[in-house]
């Protein structure tokens, strides 16, 4: 998956928030709610770039254009995480988690939750 710019990501978020598909008008209003009152050319340019990169597809309904996300938010997160993991931690997930803990990026409560989740997973797999 290609890397997208910050503002392209904003657009994707808008679309993801709209159940993965939105009309142009909807995108414009959602953006302005966020305080991003971009010009038409900017929006269309960014959308075209996303289409070229394979994250969006478009089809015309009458006069209007509808933009649909091909990659879901989850897929994007996952691939970006992998990318980050490989790039920064060279695939070492443990390193990442330790950083999270040591740097207090992970709260105690979250940590408890994760531990429980992890043990559940382990029990499940050994039961099989």
């Amino acid at each position, binding site marked *: 998956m290609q890397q997208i*710019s*910050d*503002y392209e990501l904003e657009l994707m978020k808008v679309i993801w928030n709209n159940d993965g598909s939105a009309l142009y008008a909807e995108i414009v209003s959602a953006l302005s709610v966020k305080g991003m009152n*971009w*010009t*038409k*050319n*900017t929006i*269309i*340019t*960014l959308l*075209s*770039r996303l289409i070229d990169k394979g994250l969006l597809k478009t089809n015309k309904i009458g006069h209007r254009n509808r933009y649909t996300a091909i990659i879901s938010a989850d897929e994007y997160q996952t691939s970006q995480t992998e990318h980050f993991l490989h790039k920064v931690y060279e695939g070492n997930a443990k390193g990442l988690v330790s950083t999270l803990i040591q740097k207090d990026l992970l709260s105690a409560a979250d940590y408890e939750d994760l531990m429980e989740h992890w043990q559940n997973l382990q029990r499940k797999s050994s039961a099989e």
Partner: protein
Amino acid sequence: MSYFLKLILSLSLSGTLLVLILLLSRPVYRNRLSKHWQYYIWLVVIVRLLLPITPETSLVGSLIQRVGQIHLSGMTVIQPNEHNSSNSDTIADFSADSAEEKIDSGDIGSTAEPNTPTDNSLYKSTDNSHNVAAALFLIAWLIVGMLLFMRKVTVYQSFVKYVNAGSKPIDDISLLENFGQIIAQNRIRGSIDLYTNSLISSPLLIGFIHPRIILPDADLSGSDFYYTMLHELIHYKRRDMFYKWLVQLTICLHWFNPAVYLMGREINRLCELSCDERVIKTLSEEDRKAYGDTLLNAADTGGSYRDALASVTLNENKELLKGRLEAIMNYRKMTKSIRTAAILFTGILIGAATVLGAYASPAGRTASDAGIYKNVSDSDGNQALDYSIQHENGIYYVLAHGATEADKPISGVTSLYNMLILVRKDSYATFGAWDDYDMQSLVRHISEQCRTRLANGQLTQEDMDIVIAAATEIQQTYLSGSGNVPDRRTYAYRQTASYQSPYIILYGYNLPSSARGSYKNMTVALADGLNIQIYFSEETEKFMSDDKAMSAITSMIRHRLLPKSSSSRPLEALFIVSMEDVGDTDLSSLAEKYYKEERLNYFCAVFVELDSAAQQKYLALAYDDQNISFFASCIDDSSTDTVDHYILKAYEDDRVDFFAVLSGVLDEESRQQWLERCDQDGRTAYRYILSEDDTEDYDAEDNGAEDDFYDKYGTDDYDASSTTNILDLNRITYLL
């Protein structure tokens, strides 16, 4: 095929002239008219170069036509008198060795007649080789043109690929927004992407479907960015890319013409200048300065790739840049007078483009209105041969290729023999005589003649097919007994002109019934209950309602025509071909006028009314001018002394043509005398001419010189008011 070639050449020629006009008058308009106008005026030239639209007659069109004709006529071998050579066919025995025939006819036919108008437009026999050459040129032109264009396309595509490969999209939202705002402000439709690419030398606009602007360096000052964007966006808005490609297409189609390359360069230059002008229009003076600064700054940036075609760039080269800076400084708004001047100049140029025109297809002529066509398919049944046959006075006229009544030659050569005359629109060919006994071998003999001529390039394959098909028809009709038994006294269609004050009327009588249907007519009642049908051509229709004209016609009928007709040859349909009101003009000036204008028919009409001194004067003039057609018409009327005088002159001056004409007017005794003399002098050619008349075997029943005259000349206008003679002069004057 050669039509297309001529068309392309004519388009190129017209275009070149327009290019020259525009380029040469540049000093006049370059600082006075707007660059915008200067940029778009070239569209007139492009349209002229690309569209084959022209008024029927145009300067370049007729020039190309004439060049084509001169070229053609330069190629034909036996020129002016095809008729001469075929005359000798008439007397030669069919079974004679064709080689011998050839030599003899060559002998007679070789004396060139400088004054005879040459039917140089169409010796179709040369068309074939011409068509092949033309087709080759056409193919070569097309291939080169296509290759050039394809090359341009490929170069463009690879440039785009190269640029795209090194381009990065601009993610800086502030720049994007800035850009977007400029777009919105200028009301530009469509969306444009923005990239940066360090390999290019100047900002460019690229792409037809997904247009984008690519900057060499995104780090531009606010004003530089603004003006750069504005400039490129104007290019986009005006669709300059399309215009440029149109120019390239034109250049490829006219690749052989250096003028179009000049045009291309000029248009490119003007593209940038007019774009600048458009940008500047809305700017204040200091802003203009800033714009100039932008251009200069852009010139500074480096880059490795330049392609003038692929992009619409901000700078092309230093010269252009200098020019543009100057133009920015000198810009001033367009005034009303300039606007009108621009419109005027445009109008002039469009007018010039129309007048210059292009080559128009000669096939524009309409088919005969007489409607005497029939289509006969040849033995293969595929192509229909377009001809019709008219049989008069022992002569079978085969009208082909759109020839009409008016194109028929008047031939009054033989009485006993039949002849086949292939009549085309502007020329004709005679095919050898035969008598009724030869009818069953007609096709064979005609075919032989055709083959010889085909081999000599005197006849086209198509015409040969027509002639043979016609001959076959004639033979079959005759042999099956259902055709007209050749009656030499059938009422031939003849054309003459008469002077009936104040008109000169060119008329024909005994219009064949097949032709009558298509002309307007009226019935005129004459004295003693006689009614006569008068037919009018398109040209003379208008006289039908003109009382003065009608009365002239009726008196002509009463005084000239009726006395001539007899119960054995009633006057049938009269056909008024043309009529001219000459008013009070006196006859001698009319005669002079028609002589000068070479209008034989009209001249003859007037000639007969002149006194004998004047007639003698014209005889001498015609002889000296070597104007055989006129001479032949005048001589009919002359005294024996005159004839003797001239025939001797012709003999001594070695003017075979005149001799031939004169020999036709000799009485039997003189003829014999001349025969002897020719034998003595050993001048076989002349002897041959004289002996032609030997074959006219008059029936025992024939009596009266009038009948002899009729047999000889196909008319019984014994006082020879206006008949034309052997050499088919009517047609020649028609052509003139």
